[in-house]
């Protein structure tokens, strides 16, 4: 373990050139290169993500935002012909290490997708209980507790507490997305990945999710892909700007928005492309 840490520290010092100690940072990505078949989508992304923060990854369509966060929970590799190289260090362990089980990684890292995808024919209760149940939790009252806690965390409990047995697909789009957040929270992840969670929602649904994320970042490390520049500006602590698979800029949201270092970032933020 310790030599892994040493290697990590050494390579980070070389790579990021940072005096950045591991203090307060949970995730380090080191020169992530990935793609599908002959196409290279990500061209070397190195990033540090702080504990209990919200990082927004923005960029125009096709820049590799989704591919990048899907590398973080090793979901990318589930697509036929997908490949990735580089290192992602989570709490000192390379999740692409030879002895790492991707399934165990995904249990630590919850994910919410672009379109709400509650399990069809599952009730609201069963959707949230699915993760804990399949991980072996069987006792009814323990499950009840997890379901209530997760739904409360996802700010959905008050709206659905009287109809937990109704199908999850019967909820509105915004409610379905919060249900998916509750489902992800129910397995007690430490990190939450969100892939454009509001792209299929109306403004009111979007606002609810944003409020929720601001609450959740107090307890979880959140990485969110967004197509929406204003959204990044409203709720993210740090913002990453990707363009054609390269990381153009990374910094605190206020810095990136008020004094971008790269002219391409400025052009994107001021709406000249994207």
């Amino acid at each position, binding site marked *: 373990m310790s030599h892994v840490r040493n290697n990590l520290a050494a390579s980070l010092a070389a790579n990021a050139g940072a005096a950045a100690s591991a203090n307060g940072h949970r995730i380090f990505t080191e020169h992530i290169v990935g793609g599908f078949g002959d196409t290279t989508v990500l061209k070397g992304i190195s990033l540090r993500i702080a504990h209990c923060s919200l990082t927004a990854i923005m960029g125009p369509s096709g820049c590799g935002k989704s591919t990048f966060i899907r590398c973080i929970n090793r979901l990318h590799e589930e697509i036929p012909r997908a490949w990735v190289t580089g290192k992602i260090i989570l709490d000192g362990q390379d999740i692409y290490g030879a002895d790492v089980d991707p399934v165990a990684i995904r249990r630590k890292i919850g994910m919410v997708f672009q379109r709400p995808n509650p*399990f069809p024919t599952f009730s609201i209760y069963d959707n949230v209980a699915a993760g804990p149940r399949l991980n072996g939790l069987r006792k009814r009252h323990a499950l009840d507790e997890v379901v209530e806690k997760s739904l409360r965390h996802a700010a959905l409990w008050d709206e659905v507490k009287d109809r937990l047995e109704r199908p999850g697909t019967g909820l509105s789009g915004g409610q379905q997305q919060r249900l998916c957040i509750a489902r992800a929270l129910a397995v007690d992840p430490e990190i939450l990945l969100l892939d454009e969670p509001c792209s299929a929602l109306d403004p009111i649904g979007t606002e609810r999710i944003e409020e929720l994320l601001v609450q959740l970042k107090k307890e979880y490390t959140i990485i969110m892909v967004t197509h929406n520049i204003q959204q990044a500006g409203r709720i993210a602590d740090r913002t990453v700007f990707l363009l054609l698979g390269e990381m153009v800029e990374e910094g605190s949201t206020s810095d990136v928005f008020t004094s971008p270092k790269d002219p391409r970032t400025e052009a994107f933020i001021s709406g000249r492309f994207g």
Partner: protein
Amino acid sequence: MKGIANARRRKFTNLIAMLVMVTMLVVCLIPLVSVSWTLLSKGIPAISLDFLTNLPLSRQSGIGNAILGSLLTLLVASLFAIPFGLLVGMYLSQCASSRLATPTRTLLDVMSGIPAIVVGMFIYSLVVRPMKSYSLMAGGVSLAMIMLPVFARTSEEALKAIPETVMEAGLGLGLPRWRVVLQVLLRSALPGVLTGFFLALARVGGEAAPLLFTVGGSNFWPSHAPAELARLQPLTEQVASLPLVIYEYAKDPRPAKHAAAWGAALVLVVIILAIRLSTHAYVRWRYGQQGAH
């Protein structure tokens, strides 16, 4: 003026088209209504409690053992068809790009085209001859062989209809792929899978051809003493079957047997209709619009 003439012509054409369609509809309905009417008018007089519960050779002869035999044969067929059909359906939907998928599909399509009587002969040489006797087992296997392609393909379609995002959500929760398939996808696809299963069951419920050389027919109840049941003895015995009873009785010169054949036919149709309608009602009730077909 011209506009009005046009409108008239349109209305007239419409009327003609309507008439043609309604006539065709009536023509199509004639056989259905006629069959139902004949079945009901000739079948109902034959039906009584004795008819439904007695053995053929008792004083008030009945088809009780044939009803039970048919249900048992369908049960055995389901026990074979469900696991095989589901596994093949899962394979085809989850490993769609595997090298064996296309040949498997072709094979299933060929299988569903095999005439039922050929299936019966095949099972005769495969099961009946080695066992040296007609049996419930052989009948069940031959019906399962007819159910399998139908059920496997409908399961495949039902599983494929579940969006890829559901699989991703399951994987994202930290479940291995096989558990997502078994515990999430299968359950999500259950309305479609159930509908496919009961359609296949209703399809084979009325088959006589595959049973001719397999179940053998019988005038008695299957063994039902606890010790015999524990040895699964009924599986190796000949059993009666509704379609076979209809076939036998219809050939018989005696009018009483003809009446019994009509009664048995009505019972068979009612059973199949009940399977169809109750599935439909159940899927609707349990899964709402998502499951309605």
